[in-house]
């Protein structure tokens, strides 16, 4: 009995707490993780959110619907376009407005370009988190070209605010199609370089295989969506299951891997980049002529009721839930942010793994902190 007590005491002493963040190079923002370590092994982990809480949902309740769009950019800044689209679709569906085909095509192309840019940034950060700093510059070099296209057509590079209820803010520039096609031919040549640098690297594969396992059941119960969920075999692609914009007009595969580890999540994103390229290629030559927006009333008032609209953002299912009392601003708004749900599964994924793996797992689920805190 005494021995057991001594052993228990020692075990208690052996475990120690460590604060990762809010200032830490690989939490990519101000996420704070309180980690219980035993040597180098993570025993359990508690995320503490709120360091970048700006009260966006509350701010939205005060603002009109066209104003809300500019706030959704600031949630997940890497999928700003998809977030905008969710609010626009919600307003359009509530008012039962049919947007022109041209708008649908432009929105879809822009969404997929955003997804490409986001996955490029994820790829270079994933390499950097695992110590291969060179990937960071390769990814940013190619992402720059997408941002240039955004800058020319939307006016912004990161925070786009390109969508508005009823269409898009401005028409696309005449050379938009040419520039996008140029980029795609360029990027298709560069993608094998990505694979050479990380995917085929023995050290990288050994570090990610089996790390951060989460089963399909757990992924569903935690609500892990997007590429992270599809890495566990959870078929959750909103583009496929409830198509919006022009996604019902294109052929694309939903990438599914059943391994559920970091390597599977990595592969899902790499394959999704190829799918995004093929989606853009199918649409880019067929953008129909027409208006770029429907004429809306100067003050948009949603009829009384509850509305929900979801889209597939770069990180998972992004949903907007609105309760309207018939005013020009929502009575209550709630964003279902994919990162918040994905973060909740981090504890499950990292238990009993090394602290070095924790960093790799965190970048494999690709967290954006402002989306968690809102």
């Amino acid at each position: 009995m005494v021995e057991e007590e001594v052993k228990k005491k020692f075990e208690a002493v052996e475990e120690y707490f460590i604060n990762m963040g809010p200032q830490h190079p690989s939490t990519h923002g101000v996420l704070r993780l309180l980690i219980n370590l035993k040597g180098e092994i993570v025993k359990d982990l508690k995320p503490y959110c709120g360091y970048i809480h700006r009260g966006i949902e509350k701010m939205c309740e005060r603002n009109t619907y066209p104003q809300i769009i500019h706030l959704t950019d600031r949630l997940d800044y890497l999928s700003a376009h998809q977030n905008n689209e969710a609010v626009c679709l919600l307003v359009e569906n509530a008012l039962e407005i049919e947007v022109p085909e041209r708008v649908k095509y432009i929105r879809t192309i822009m969404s997929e370009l955003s997804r490409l840019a986001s996955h490029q940034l994820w790829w270079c950060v994933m390499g950097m988190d695992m110590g291969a700093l060179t990937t960071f510059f390769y990814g940013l070099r190619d992402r720059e070209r997408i941002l240039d296209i955004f800058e020319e057509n939307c006016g912004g590079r990161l925070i786009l605010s390109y969508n508005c209820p009823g269409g898009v803010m401005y028409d696309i520039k005449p050379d938009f199609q040419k520039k996008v096609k140029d980029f795609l031919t360029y990027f298709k040549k560069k993608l094998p370089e990505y694979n050479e640098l990380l995917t085929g690297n023995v050290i990288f594969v050994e570090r990610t295989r089996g790390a951060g396992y989460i089963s399909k059941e757990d992924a569903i119960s935690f609500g892990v969506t997007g590429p992270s969920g599809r890495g566990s075999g959870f078929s959750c692609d909103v583009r496929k299951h409830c198509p919006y914009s022009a996604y019902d007009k294109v052929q694309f595969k939903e990438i599914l891997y059943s391994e559920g580890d970091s390597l599977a999540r990595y592969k899902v994103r790499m394959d999704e980049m190829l799918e995004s390229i093929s989606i853009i290629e199918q649409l880019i030559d067929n953008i129909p002529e027409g208006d770029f927006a429907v004429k809306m009333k100067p003050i948009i008032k949603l009829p009384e009721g509850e509305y929900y609209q979801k889209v597939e953002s770069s990180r998972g299912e992004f949903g907007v839930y609105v309760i309207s009392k018939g005013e020009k601003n929502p009575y209550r708004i709630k964003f279902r942010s994919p990162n918040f749900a994905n973060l909740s599964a981090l504890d499950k994924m990292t238990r009993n793994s090394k602290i070095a793996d924790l960093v790799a797992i965190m970048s494999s689920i690709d967290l954006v902190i402002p989306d968690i805190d809102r």
Partner: protein
Amino acid sequence: MFLYDFTELTSKIHAGLVSSLGEGLLTTTIELSIAGVVVLLFYALVGLFLVYLERKVCAFFQCRLGPMRVGPWGLLQTIADFIKLMMKELITIKSADQLLFNVAPFIVIIASFLAIGAIPFAKGLHALDFDIGVLYVTAVSSLGVLGILLAGWSSNNKYSLIGAMRSGAQIVSYELSVGLSLITIVVLAGTMQFSQIIIGQTDGWFIIKGHIPAVIAFIIFIIASTAETNRGPFDLAEAESELTAGFHTEYSGIKFAFFFLAEFMNMFIVSSIAATVFFGGWMPFHIGGFDSFNHIMDFIPPVLWFFGKTFSIVFLMMWFKWTFPRLRIDQLLTLEWKYLLPINLVNILVMSLCVLNGWHF
């Protein structure tokens, strides 16, 4: 035989000192101080150059230009950085172990400084040349881990402590591989004295003379010495994405610069040892029997040969630092104990058989 011999210069200085001051303590002291100052200056210069080289090499790997603003092609950038580091405030944390915290950077830098004395840069350009040179260098260069451990422990920071624990496990393990791969060549050379090892390569470098086992030993040496100098992909002690900066998180100013400089100098030292032991050090490229060819090669100064070889290996080490992701600690130890060490032991056996039966060139 060799056109550029520094023995003449050193013996002239010695003769001049003896004739004016006579043999005695004073002469020895002056000679030792001259040697010390020269090595110290060399140490600082090579350190500054290596920092510049690393920044440029990594920049070119990453589609950047690197430092370009200070001086032509940014050549004065490291000097400017050095002045900045000298002028920065030295922060000592209240709860740190004051003595150990302040001593640690000096241990690290002294260890690398001691090792550089034993490296022959050219014929006669050699601060220390004694019959256990190889043993001395491996012994002295492993002292650095003490400094890293002390730095991690005394900082009173959990991140630093994890970094120090990792580097303890890592350096102690990889020391074995470094030593054993050097022993493989010592078996072939039949001596541990660096000058004799180089003379033994007059008719061909050991990596050619010792063919397969020597090449295996070289590969193992490069892997293990990268790990021993705490550089990527084995930079677990620093691991900036996991441990912010590992063992030197809490250091600032010139004390941080000491760790930084020591890391670069250790890289230079292991590269120069690899160049000396496997590629003949300052010995020009010779082929046994081709006397006229060998004579032409002798016209290239040995200092150029030495630095050419050393910086090629330094470049190789930078190359894989900027390409590979970092290993995990358990993979690192598995690599050493399950792969490198057994291969190394078998390799020594093969080399001994080769030497005994005369199966080498």
